[in-house]
């Protein structure tokens, strides 16, 4: 008890739900959760979306987001129950004893204020230091976190620094008042994989050097394995398993934890050869009114009924390539051949068959569907539009498609809001399939989904490829997904294809510098991976 900094007992958290057309009702988000964080230790909270991990994290500051209420249990910070200290007691706790690092630092910083003013605000507000002392501490934290120009970066506004830097500034903001506990809420989830490893290393170093305790919330078990001493696995607001990191990663007892650890179990046999259904030749493109090319001389082929993965970080031009292929952005140079015929650069000039045979599935299934149409209407629309199906024939075909995406009878009259994230994405897949396409462009289709759900979607896509003989152009930043699904891979960097070939070729050494960086940055689910990778890079840098 003496070393317990944060002690949570029998936590119960409720919220009020407002289902459309029904009376509001209370729902339980978290129930029966208890854990302890000792001084200087890191506890990882892990689970899928809806597991209540952020809600539990924020309960250590007695904060409920939206209409969320803590209705039961006790939360002790430094020995006192913070659920009983009242508003002024909470203000004294927040920003002094416990601080918070949000998932999206870009949204969590006030756009109208300089970074330094925000970083030292809590420290000054609680009267912990004078202004000069606080600024000096902030600058030393900036340096510790590896930010460029630590002396002057505080004079900048949030929009003037990159996402990865902002996330580190936010960490400095949390550490500035010398708190006892920092809540990290998915601090690296929104970052590119090569940026994530840098931020992760910076956070870990800062935790070790300042001796602060932390709650580290994430859905990525491989990430939390690098940073936590203990891990608490959550599912649907309840505890599944709680133990040391070594125990959870190497000898998980519960089936759910085992599934999380062994996710990405897809064994996909690579296909080779075959005539290309899509040929992209020498495409160069820029957005109207801009002065630089987003795509530079891109040439790739996609054979029939195979999958070409386009891999790259944000800004590498991979989504722009999809816009060029669909005709939304006419290229300034180059040519696209599809199924033996040359496609018009603008989609307006393409034939109806050209449009039908290339379909798209998007990252956000939510916004890709009309919320006021039922599943039946959404899937039925291309059937009417392309094939003139009506009445019973249409209904029969919709049901066939729903069967193909492994959703049963009951869904035809449902609205998108009544579906889970994975189900929504399945409906989008059915809508694309309804057009009987030769090729589907999948733009980050699994990025917004939890690992286990994403796994299901990938398996479905592979199955459908066998049945429907459809080719996939699979755009993603996630190399694990690529390993699972691709036949060939194109790695893009700053608008160029830097590496292109069959999956085994691309993923086998010798690597070019960028692909090497990309591959080695993907967190692996083993203890000490982060330290080893950083050490390797230092050695390589020293060797050069």
């Amino acid at each position, binding site marked *: 008890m003496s070393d317990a900094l944060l002690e949570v007992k029998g936590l119960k958290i409720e919220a009020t739900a407002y289902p459309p057309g029904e009376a509001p009702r209370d729902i339980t988000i978290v129930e029966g959760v208890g854990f302890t964080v000792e001084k200087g230790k890191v506890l990882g909270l892990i689970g899928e979306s809806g597991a209540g991990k952020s809600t539990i994290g924020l309960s250590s500051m007695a904060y409920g987001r939206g209409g969320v209420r803590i209705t039961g249990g006790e939360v002790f910070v430094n020995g006192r129950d913070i659920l009983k200290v009242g508003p002024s007691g*909470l203000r*004294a706790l*927040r*920003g002094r004893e416990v*601080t918070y690092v949000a998932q999206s630092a870009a949204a*969590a910083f006030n756009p109208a204020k300089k970074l330094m003013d925000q970083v030292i605000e*809590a420290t000054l507000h609680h009267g912990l230091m004078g202004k000069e002392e606080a600024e000096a501490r902030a600058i030393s934290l900036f340096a510790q976190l590896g930010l460029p120009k630590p002396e002057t970066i505080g004079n900048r*506004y949030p929009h003037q620094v990159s996402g990865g830097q902002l996330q580190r500034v936010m960490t400095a903001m949390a550490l500035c008042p010398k708190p006892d506990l920092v809540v990290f809420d998915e601090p690296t989830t929104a970052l590119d994989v090569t940026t994530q490893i840098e931020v992760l290393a910076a956070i870990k170093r800062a935790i070790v050097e300042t001796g602060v305790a932390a709650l580290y919330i994430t859905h990525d078990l491989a990430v939390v394995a690098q940073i936590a001493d203990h891990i608490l696995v959550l599912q649907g607001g309840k505890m599944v398993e709680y133990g040391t990191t070594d125990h959870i990663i190497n000898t998980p007892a519960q089936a759910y934890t085992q599934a999380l650890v062994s996710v990405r179990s897809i064994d996909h046999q690579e296909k080779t050869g075959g005539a290309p259904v899509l040929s992209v030749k020498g495409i160069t493109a820029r957005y109207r009114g801009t002065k630089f090319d987003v795509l530079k001389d891109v040439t790739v082929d996609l054979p029939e009924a195979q999958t070409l993965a386009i891999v790259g970080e944000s800004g590498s031009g991979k989504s722009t390539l999809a816009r060029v292929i669909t005709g939304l952005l006419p290229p300034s140079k180059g040519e696209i051949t599809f199924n033996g015929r040359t496609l018009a650069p603008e989609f307006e000039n393409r034939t109806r068959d050209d449009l039908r045979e290339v379909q798209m599935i998007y990252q956000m299934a939510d916004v890709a569907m009309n919320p006021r149409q039922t599943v039946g209407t959404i899937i039925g629309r291309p059937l009417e539009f392309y094939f003139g199906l009506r009445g019973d024939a249409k209904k029969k075909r919709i049901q066939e498609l729903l069967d193909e995406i492994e959703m049963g009878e009951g869904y035809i009259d449902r609205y998108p809001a009544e579906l889970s994230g994975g189900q929504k994405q399945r409906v989008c897949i059915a809508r694309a399939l309804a057009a009987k396409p030769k090729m589907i462009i999948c733009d980050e289709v699994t990025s917004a989904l939890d690992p286990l759900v994403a796994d299901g979607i990938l398996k479905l896509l592979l199955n459908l490829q066998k049945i429907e003989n459809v080719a996939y152009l699979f755009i993603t930043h996630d190399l694990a997904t690529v390993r699972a699904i691709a036949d060939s891979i194109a790695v893009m960097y700053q608008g160029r294809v830097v590496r292109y070939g069959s999956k085994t070729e691309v993923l086998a050494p010798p690597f070019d510098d960028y692909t090497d960086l990309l591959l080695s940055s993907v967190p692996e689910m083993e203890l000490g991976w982060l330290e080893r990778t950083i050490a390797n890079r230092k050695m390589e840098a020293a060797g050069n």
Partner: protein
Amino acid sequence: MHPVVKLVAQRLALGMLLLLAASVLIFVGTQILPGDVAQSILGQSATPQSLANLRAELGLNEPAISRYFSWLFNALQGDLGKALSNGQDIATSMGSRLGNTLFLAISAAVVAVPLAILLGLIAVRYQGRWPDRVISTVTLATVSVPEFLLGYIAMFFLSVKFRVFPSLAAINDGMTFFEKLNSIALPVLVLVLVVLGHMMRMTRAAILNVMQSAYVETAELKGLRKFTIIARHALPNAIAPVVNVVMLNLAYLVVGVVVVEVVFVYPGMGQYLVDHVSKRDVPVVQACGLVFAAVYIGLNLVADVVSILANPRLRHPK
């Protein structure tokens, strides 16, 4: 060039163009009014010969285009012509009127703008609780009552019953600043009540919109007080919509106070305009129209520029 300078220059140029267009509209509008200026000056006693002479003297025989340009160039040099009704120089007689109107408008603005923003902040702080409801209801009520009625109610209580302020807002150059303020207290009160609701509601709505942001949560998790969060973190990000509404209301204070000036017999632009419209004094009406248009466009220009300056992305490019 700094993008802000470029944007502001663009807005300025656009404002000039708009003012030019307004001058055309004003000129055309006064031309198509029924009646003949020479006829209305000479009245019943006009002979055809004297009418022709006066027309030639006033330049009314020139084509409309050339009259427009000579009017415009004179106006640009500060010469607004002479009033037909009394032969006085318009610029001179309008000068003191405009000064009076601006004095009234600025006095009302100095009270109304900070008060509206403060009330907006308080309404957000106690959102959905009684201070919010009281503020919203009362300001809505004062906006809804016609301003002349507000004027007479204020007069009845404050000058007739309790004799706090004078009922007529007569001011002259011999009065001290505070005597003037005392004299215009009632019209200022009425104007404040008229514009308060609009500005307060916009402030409240704009800040509530910002209160949903993630950075407000960040501020809450720093342990800041609610009011500090609203004033320091939310308000700076709600400036643009608030400034636009504030400027619209300031423009109303200059351009739209005709009724209030008439109620309190205040020697301002509104009375001046109304007097000369009834006398068909076209040059005065044109001059007033031009000044009102300039004030309106100018204030909206200021709102645009402030909105641009309030955006840190434009002020501090990458």
